[in-house]
């Protein structure tokens, strides 16, 4: 990946070898050429299939040195060995972003390579700008690029129970196995996780048999610590939290934040309206539990259900590009909005109606991994025809989303919660319910269209057997 940051005029001078003797016509025209020079980023490579981060052992080349393609630039320590990393381009080592002795995640920028000597100074200025917002060690520095930064996939809209287990975790729990808190009974894997991540088992609530602490209890504590941004005992190699906000300061938008802002302002020109609906998700939750072991996520299930409903209501999958016509999209590409550190990205599940749920889940996992490694291609995040946005994991019960330009509708999904309902025959019962709110462009989608779509979607979610195809 390269960022196009600089345009400069470039006047070629013929190298000595090509200069003819005086009297002969010079072969090269002396006209100024406009060349886009590139400042390339050198990334931390994955030196083994299990490597997730590497430590810089030593820089073979220093800032300002000339690099040729194939020459070793730096020695990196992976989980298996120390290896020389080569440069893929000719140029100059303009700036070292990660110093010796420090670690960086696989895929993060460790140095900048400039094509010509003139650009070295610019590259240094650029690296200083980008590294000013990130601490030097040991977290990976934040490079400037329009690709997404380090990434947290928000957990699926599981009931708020998961988050609350985490928040309760730091209180003590009475359970039989611990003999009134004297002894901690924890399974081997729970003990291992606790040791690796620095979690004190004493305060962890055990959900296993006889109050035993099992692996997922420790994972819940870690998830809660991440959410609350506090967790003093959580592993320190997580990327820096945005709690580095300096009050009273003025911080420029990054490229991504600028893009989000532009899109939101553009959406003001679109006449939107909103329709809300409440789904009963008991059947969907049961299905999820059944096929969870096969790698299926709630995100994939919701995307698939939405896609199947869109098949029956193609108008909701349309958009108004020019203000005077319907653009009926041939594909149903469900984009799912995901919050990441300092930004927002919408990886797209292409043809979500045609792909089976298992492949869809796998594809989703790949997209998430790619986004984390900043390798999402534009066609993987700009081709959505319908967007899903989910804040249920925070306990939000309903919200309405802003319509991304170029699409017709976006569905905001809230948390599914057990609710007391009154039925038509005068009884009171409990159902797990989830509120959704769809924002749509009224130039192409009318109220009845949207309501009918939601009704179909509600039927699919309440009887989800078709989702497993």
């Amino acid at each position: 990946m390269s960022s196009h940051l600089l345009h400069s005029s470039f006047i070629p001078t013929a190298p000595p070898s090509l200069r003819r003797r005086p009297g002969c016509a010079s072969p090269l025209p002396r006209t100024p050429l406009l060349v886009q020079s590139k400042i390339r980023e050198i990334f931390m490579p994955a030196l083994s299939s299990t490597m997730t981060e590497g430590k810089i052992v030593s820089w073979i080349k220093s800032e300002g040195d000339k690099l040729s393609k194939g020459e070793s630039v730096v020695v990196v320590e992976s989980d298996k060995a120390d290896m020389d990393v080569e440069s893929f381009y000719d140029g100059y080592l303009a700036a070292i972003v990660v110093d010796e002795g420090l670690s960086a995640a696989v895929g993060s920028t460790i140095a900048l390579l400039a094509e010509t000597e003139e650009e070295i100074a610019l590259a240094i200025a650029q690296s200083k700008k980008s590294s000013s917002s990130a601490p030097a060690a040991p977290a990976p520095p934040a490079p400037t690029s329009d690709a997404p930064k380090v990434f947290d996939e928000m957990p699926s809209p599981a009931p708020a129970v998961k988050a609350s287990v985490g928040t309760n975790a730091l209180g003590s729990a009475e359970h039989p196995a611990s003999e009134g808190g004297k002894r901690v009974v924890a399974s081997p894997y729970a003990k291992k996780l606790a040791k690796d991540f620095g979690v004190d088992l004493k305060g962890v609530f055990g959900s296993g048999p006889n109050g035993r602490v099992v692996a997922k209890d420790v994972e819940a504590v870690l998830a809660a610590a991440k959410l609350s941004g506090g967790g003093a005992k959580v592993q320190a190699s997580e990327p820096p939290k945005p709690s580095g906000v300096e009050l009273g300061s003025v911080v420029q938008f990054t490229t991504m934040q600028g893009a989000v802002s532009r899109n939101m302002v553009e959406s003001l020109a679109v006449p939107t309206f909103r329709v809300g609906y409440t789904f009963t998700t008991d059947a969907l939750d049961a299905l999820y539990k059944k096929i969870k072991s096969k790698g299926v996520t709630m995100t994939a299930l919701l995307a698939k259900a939405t896609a199947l409903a869109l098949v029956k209501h193609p108008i909701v999958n349309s958009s108004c590009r020019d203000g005077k016509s319907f653009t009926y999209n041939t594909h149903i590409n469900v984009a799912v909005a995901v919050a990441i550190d300092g930004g927002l990205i919408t990886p797209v599940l292409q043809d979500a109606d045609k792909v089976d749920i298992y492949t869809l889940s796998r594809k989703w996992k790949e997209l998430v991994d790619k986004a984390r490694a900043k390798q999402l291609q534009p066609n993987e995040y700009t081709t959505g025809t319908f967007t899903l946005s989910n804040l249920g994991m925070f306990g939000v019960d309903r919200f309405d989303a802003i319509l991304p330009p170029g699409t017709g509708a976006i569905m905001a999904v809230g948390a599914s919660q057990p609710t007391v309902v009154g039925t038509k025959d005068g009884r009171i019962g409990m159902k797990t319910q989830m509120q959704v709110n769809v924002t749509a462009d009224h130039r192409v989608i009318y109220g009845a269209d949207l309501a009918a779509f939601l009704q179909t979607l509600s039927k699919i979610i309440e009887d989800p057997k078709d989702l497993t195809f």
Partner: protein
Amino acid sequence: MGGTCVNRGCVPSKALLAVSGRMRELQDEHHMKALGLQVAAAGYDRQAVADHANNLASKIRGNLTNSLKAIGVDILTGFGTIVGPQKVKYGKVGFSENVVTAKDIIIATGSVPFVPKGIEIDGKTVITSDHALKLEFVPDWIAIVGSGYIGLEFSDVYTALGSEVTFIEAMDQLMPGFDPEIGKLAQRVLINPRKIDYYTGVFATKITPAKDGKPVTIELIDAKTKEAKDTLEVDAALIATGRAPFTKGLGLNNINVETQRGFVPVDDRMRVIDADGNLVPHVYCIGDANGKLMLAHTASAQGISVIEQLTGKDYVLNHLSIPAACFTHPEISMVGLTEPQAREKAEKEGFEISIAKTSFKANTKALAENEGEGLAKLIYRPDTGEILGVHILGMHAADLIHEASNAIALGTRVQDIKFAVHAHPTLSEVLDELYKSAKVNPHVSKSVSEPVSV
């Protein structure tokens, strides 16, 4: 028919290990991705897995029985007791007894799982390998008492099927029977990355089965100081503390033979020795019952030795040439002495030993399979070239060891085998590496080929 091996040992355990090996591969997303494969989450049907093991045991039992019948063997079913020289009585409970006479008698009654005092077996939550092989249930958390090859193999099976394991080992380190270097690597590969933790240097003095919703409780004491250490609460406990010979009721006293800790005393030709130290004519004992080397193929080899003698050809089995294997993933195998044993012998007898080592990471086939984790080790005498021991941890170790065990059995020395060609690319090149890197003192001559000019 078939004894422990077919019914409660080798056969069903290898069936379960085959399942666990595949499960582990399919669940290893990293490994699959590195090869470019995508696999949807793998699952298993416990009953079907158990059936695979049971069916295999039945099949082999059937084949065995038919083979014996085909060569004219008479099979008399019942509990046998020696009543006098060349006389055996046999019968089943509730039936009348028969007495038969024979020219020679071979005792091959084998062994049973040894259960230490204080441990209550209920066959459901506190089990031995006999129960475990039926795989009646897969516990969330199982404690395995004993980290020898039986415990290790079961930990492989249970962790692949989703359980978490805790080892309880009386000695100070896990896998005390293995060469220490192999044991260290085994810990790194077979234990640390898996959901396994362990307690060493402890005895389980009391194990109570699960009852009324309470889990299995295990009380641990320090092996040396005997003070109470910890109490574990787990879903199941597997007792893998070794095997005890099954020699009760054999009527050995009728021929003046006394067992030693249950084992039948024999000489190196498997001839039974009586209480006065004399050989009992026409009575032999092979296999686990004599305790020399409790492995199935040892019993077979000892049996062959006896038959050779009975048909007039003397044959003494060299126990040092018998390989042993542990079928975890990756496998472990060995033949001969461990490094500490070799050093001890070297010091006592006054010679030097050398070690040649190679990693599976250097082997093309292992890397192609993305299974570079492994180590092979050769312990030899640089003054004679004698091979004292070979230890392998890695893919197919159990098959690879035979080159080494053959060499030891035939007395082949390192310099004789150095130039042997191994097909490429195969895992056997790991051994090729060992032989080629071994340095024997230059003046030692080869047994084959022209004399070397000095």
